[in-house]
């Protein structure tokens, strides 16, 4: 090969490489961050959350909603605060991302000071600790928090079902602690009695001893505040150890694992109400495309993290139209200016503290990979 040809080829290669780098830079004009547990015993949630956000990114890019396209950068939080902080620091300091989707109460509380200090929007669609409502203007929740969910569930269980003796088994972390505090107030207020409370370590997997202790307390209903593989193991062992009482929990029971677990059949859980028959194109497209891709109904977490991405796209469009820089501060101002947003199955307005109000649906696991609506509490 003569030198001229070689020079041309190298130049061509360099140009192609430069083009590809430029293209990458352009495509990364809009980057979203996410702190999901992609490994460890809660990795199932990461899979669920990312399926919702990735579908939304696909829709945003298909519709060319944002110039240059939208990319999603997921950091593995392992559902642990320390790993969450590491991931958040990377997203904010290295990648300069102004909008981060977060999950899990402990992780969210740990990253909140970083977001507040750097003016980064943090949006939570999975954690439900009530104090997530108090993490400042840059922390938004698009999932009802545990106090709202329990406020719907406890009166139904205690008054309507007449199950007055309650036991709580809760994971020893900020989520579990907050559910304990809520139930300590709500159960007596509704005429019931919290006859036992059992805290379990985050890593615990053996619960036959706790089952034996719970049995001696003769509860009518067992509330569970855990998540991931642990809550499935807990439910299985409670049932295997002869406890056939009503089980009740929060959104965490909506995962495919819990829906497919035979021992969880009959368990009650709460989640925000989604009107699948809302009739708008966004809702229809979301359900059609999700079911086509995954061959099952999306859980509420999928809906939330889809909505979180679509919310960013709407806010970023607004900021672009205003000719402003894409910063957390301007995204917050855009949210406050727009006011109301079309989400999958609902229209939402944010409260002053960054939470959204939504009707709560009480559902029952059917034991055959699904759940059925029991009632809706406004």
């Amino acid at each position, binding site marked *: 090969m003569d030198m001229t040809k070689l020079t041309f080829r190298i130049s061509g290669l360099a140009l192609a490489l430069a083009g590809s780098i430029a293209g990458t830079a352009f495509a990364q004009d809009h980057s979203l961050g996410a702190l999901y547990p992609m490994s460890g015993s809660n*990795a199932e949630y990461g899979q669920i959350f990312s399926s919702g956000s990735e579908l939304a990114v696909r829709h945003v890019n298909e519709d060319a909603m944002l110039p240059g396209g939208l990319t999603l950068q997921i950091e593995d939080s392992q559902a642990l605060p320390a790993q969450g902080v590491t991931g958040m620091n990377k997203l904010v300091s290295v990648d300069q991302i102004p909008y981060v989707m977060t999950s899990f109460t402990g992780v969210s509380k740990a990253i909140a000071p970083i977001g507040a200090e750097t003016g980064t929007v943090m949006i939570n669609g999975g954690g439900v600790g009530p104090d997530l409502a108090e993490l400042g203007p840059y922390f938004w929740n698009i999932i009802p928090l545990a106090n709202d969910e329990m406020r719907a569930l406890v009166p139904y269980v205690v008054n309507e079902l007449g199950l007055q003796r309650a036991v709580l088994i809760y994971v020893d972390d900020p989520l579990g602690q907050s559910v304990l505090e809520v139930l300590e107030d709500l159960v007596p207020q509704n005429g019931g009695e919290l006859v036992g409370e059992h805290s379990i370590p985050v890593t615990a997997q053996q619960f036959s001893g706790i089952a034996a*202790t719970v*049995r001696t307390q003769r509860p009518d209903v067992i509330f569970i505040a855990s998540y*991931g593989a642990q809550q*499935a193991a807990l439910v299985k*062992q409670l049932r295997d*150890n002869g406890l056939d009482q009503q089980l009740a929990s929060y959104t965490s029971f909506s995962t495919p694992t819990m829906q497919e*677990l*035979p021992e969880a059949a009959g368990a009650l859980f709460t989640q925000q109400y989604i009107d699948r028959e809302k009739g708008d194109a966004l809702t229809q497209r979301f359900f059609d495309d999700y079911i086509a891709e995954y061959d099952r109904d999306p859980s509420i977490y999928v809906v939330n993290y889809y909505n979180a991405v679509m919310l960013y796209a709407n806010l970023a469009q607004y900021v672009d139209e205003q000719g402003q820089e894409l910063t957390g501060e301007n995204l917050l101002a855009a949210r406050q200016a727009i006011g109301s947003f079309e989400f999958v199955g609902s229209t939402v307005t944010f409260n002053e503290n960054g939470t959204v109000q939504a009707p709560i649906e009480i559902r029952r696991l059917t034991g055959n990979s699904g759940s059925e609506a029991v009632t809706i509490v406004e």
Partner: protein
Amino acid sequence: MLILQLLLNGLQTGMLYALTAAGFSLIFGMTRIFHAAHGATFVIAAYAYWHITSLAGLPWWVAALGATMAAVIFGAGLYLTVYRRIQRSEASFFTVFIAAFGAVVVVQNVISMIYGRGFVSSSTPLSRAKELIPGLYVAPLIWVSVAVAAVFFGAMALLLKRTRLGVAMRALADNPELVRVYGLDPGRISLMVFVIGSILVVPAAIIQVIATGANPAVGHHIVMISLAASIVGGIGSLSGAAIAGILIGVAETLALLVVGSQWTEAVSFLILFVFIIVRPAGIFGRAHAH
């Protein structure tokens, strides 16, 4: 009655811990390889059993056989392809540890990719407790666990004391150079240790899938329990691992009588610390270092 109930529940947990720790203790005691990937062998056996019974719908004994094959292939394969090469290059203990730890992470991710990251379990009447006498619930799995542990530990005791392979394995633990002088191949004996150690984890993996369920990340927890039971029992002592596993399982459960449920796991490590301080060689360990 609660004490008796907790004692029985603790016994079942203890059997699971004992069987889990036995393979780890055997491998570490005989070969001095810190086989952190024992947890990965456990995960592979658990998922193989679950796949064959729950997905393929085949009988439990076919699944047990399949799980055993999968565990042996992984355990022996890891020894041949990773540990032996590292040992040949005379790399440090930590190189082996990092390689083993890496294997756990790789297995966790591969299992997650194939089966998802959720929880799996096999439902069988064996795990359903029945009320034997008022207030006392016992699952048949307790008796199965005790019987399986007795058979496996009995067989291992016979193997180690009455067979040429057992003598060779014990000799390997004592002095690998002397084994070579006698014309035996330490590599071949180590391979057999890995095969047997991997087989030992299979009943524990099956009991776990039936009794509590499993997930791809369970391997780390298994290694922690194995390590604690092996140290308390005395490194390399199968009877020590068995007694320590049962001791930890029963203590964890009985602790519910005196401390809150969030402290039960800490009890295992309290026992470990007590032994490290009072009797560092463990229950049946010998007080000398290699």
